[in-house]
């Protein structure tokens, strides 16, 4: 009955109730958006790379190295010479190695020069391997494998030819027109920056820059090739076509002059710190090795303050909206004196009146929270493509997590506290309300 009275009372004060509802809905939505972006950025970043134990590049900062190599953000560092790569490859602790050559683009999308070892060893999310949605990995020097988003947004399919441009701008005047790459495969959607990258062979990339070069078999592919042979029989059927392609073209056989970054997988993860130390202390060529997990932790540390500031501001906005709710209820109190008197004389105690006002406040906040959840879910699904293309933020489900639940509960708690003001006013009025309450 009390909720019926509360609902009907709010319906009577439609205009003020709707305006209050709107202000609370907007403020809760803002807070939820900040929280979702915050948690999704974290999830999105952490699921971008998994299974890579060390990332090695020229000395810069560990964040720069991480962002340019894994997230395709920022400027790539200076290259690493082949001899250093070969040294890393021959290191007993190293299980596999992925060379990455960065710095070119295709219609605004980053081009990454690599070998087929990338598709064999790179893992994302919960140790998931890359899978092909169509075609296969590199089949010849001028092969390219593109991410799912590029295929979708540019309408590419296997067999199409694309031209890459020098430099990182979305518009470039230095196109490698004479070296068109043929799309050999499209990677299945991963929800990571892989979806927005164009992978070309190191050989093709170098030829595009410097012209054709014939090189003997390099050290690069040895470990991966050996490993592939070991498992050949186990995967005979499922990788039949894949191995056949490898047999035709061994992308790892090419010796690049230098690459931007190398990702390493170790035989035993525990040796990562030791190897990192060795690489960082190497006197042959100044190199820097980073542990992706530690670099991410540093990134969160920097972002932590901004996060807290944004959350704090959004929280304050919610509190302002809730104070607005209390003000609305307090303002209506005078016109409710008669109603309070009637309720008192038919048996409602002052505490019931207090409860009634709190139910009204809670109802408004609960409806606002429900509307906010719907609004934010709609907004996020509408902004999903824009967020991933502009900011590289890939939203994963569930959108609302534990923190959203905590936020809603906190808001309900705040509503309870803030609504005490009008509720106590009703209670006090109720203590003295009687017949002829119109005076």
């Amino acid at each position, binding site marked *: 009955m009390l909720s019926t*009275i509360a609902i009907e009372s709010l319906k009577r004060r439609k205009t003020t109730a709707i305006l209050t509802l709107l202000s609370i809905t907007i403020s809760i939505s803002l807070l939820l958006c900040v929280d979702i972006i915050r948690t999704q950025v974290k999830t999105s970043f952490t699921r971008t790379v998994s299974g890579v134990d060390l990332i090695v590049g020229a000395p810069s900062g560990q964040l720069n190295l991480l962002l340019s190599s894994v997230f395709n953000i920022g400027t790539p560092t200076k290259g690493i010479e082949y001899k250093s790569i070969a040294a890393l490859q021959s290191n007993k602790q190293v299980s596999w190695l992925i060379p990455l050559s960065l710095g070119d683009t295709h219609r605004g999308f980053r081009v990454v020069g690599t070998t087929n070892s990338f598709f064999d060893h790179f893992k994302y999310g919960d140790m998931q391997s890359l899978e092909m949605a169509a075609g296969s990995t590199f089949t010849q020097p001028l092969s390219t494998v593109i991410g799912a988003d590029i295929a979708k947004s540019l309408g590419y399919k296997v067999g199409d030819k694309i031209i890459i441009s020098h430099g990182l701008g979305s518009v470039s005047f230095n196109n490698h027109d004479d070296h068109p790459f043929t799309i050999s495969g499209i990677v299945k959607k991963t929800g990571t920056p892989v979806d927005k990258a164009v992978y070309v062979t190191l050989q093709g990339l170098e030829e595009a820059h410097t012209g054709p070069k014939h090189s003997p078999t390099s050290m690069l592919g040895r470990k991966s090739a050996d490993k592939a042979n070991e498992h050949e029989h186990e995967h005979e059927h499922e990788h039949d076509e894949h191995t056949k392609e490898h047999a035709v073209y061994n992308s790892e056989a090419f010796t690049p002059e230098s690459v931007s970054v190398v990702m390493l997988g170790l035989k035993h993860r525990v040796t990562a710190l030791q190897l990192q130390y060795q690489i960082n202390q190497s006197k042959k060529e100044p190199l820097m090795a980073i542990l992706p997990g530690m670099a991410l932790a540093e990134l969160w540390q920097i972002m932590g303050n901004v996060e807290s500031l944004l959350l704090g501001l959004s929280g304050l906005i919610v509190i302002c909206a809730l104070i607005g709710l209390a003000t609305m209820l307090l303002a209506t109190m005078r016109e409710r004196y008669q*109603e309070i008197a009637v309720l008192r*004389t*038919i*048996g*409602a105690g*002052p505490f019931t009146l207090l409860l009634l006002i709190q139910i009204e406040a809670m109802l408004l906040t609960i409806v606002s929270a429900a509307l906010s959840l719907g609004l934010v879910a709609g907004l996020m699904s509408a902004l999903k493509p824009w967020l991933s293309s502009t900011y590289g933020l890939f939203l994963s489900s569930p959108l609302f997590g534990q923190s959203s639940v905590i936020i809603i509960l906190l808001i309900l708690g705040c509503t309870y506290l803030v609504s005490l003001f009008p509720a106590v006013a009703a209670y006090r009025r109720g203590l003295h309300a009687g*017949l002829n309450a119109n005076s």
Partner: protein
Amino acid sequence: MNTINKKNSTHSQRNAVSEGRNTAIEVSNLQFSYTKESPPIIDIKAWQVSQGEHVFLSGPSGSGKSTLLNLLCGTLTPTQGDIALLAQPFSALSNRQRDKFRARNIGVVFQQFNLIPYLSVAQNINAAVYFASTNVSKTASDAKLRHLLDKLQLPSHVLHAKADALSIGQQQRVAIARALINDPQLLIVDEPTSALDTDARDSFMSLLKDVAGESTMIFVSHDKAMESYFDRHCSMSELSPSTNHLKTRGDEAPKAQERA
């Protein structure tokens, strides 16, 4: 209760108590003032109303009629003295117990603002059932409601109408229905006819007397012409002579405080 039993007989008692009936209202040494400093608005030595008796309470504006009704309803607490209702020490009950007692045993019809405007007629009446928390089933309560509407000549479609969409006459009848829905033993009616013309007033009174049945009724009005509808007439100047004597000397309590 001992205090009540020991009290002296007064002129009110002589007039009020009918032989052989139980007492519905028993007031002794009742005083009420809104603040400690202000003089009492009510000062009644003793007053009794028998069960089933219909009493007409009159007095000029500001004589303390509504204050007395609020004290009888328990929405005000006496500054001094006792009120016993239906053999219960009403003024000694806790606030919560008084609210519950009122919901179950007292029906109130206001002068105006009888109904909560944004609730439907059914919701207004059911609210009284809800606050009384009786064990009456929904079916029984609905049947009672329809019976009351019939008696009060209200068409059943008004049940779903919002209270403020009804005419004044309909609102008053709905207010009576709400006051009677829990079968109260005591009915308190505060100047319900002040806005009605003579014909409408007579028709309203007949209806009220009819539906009130065996309930004890205190009917307040400053219109002495209504006296003929009731078993007994009490005036505030007789009940509370000292406070009304003060008012005639112009020593009236502030209007805002008195609310009577």
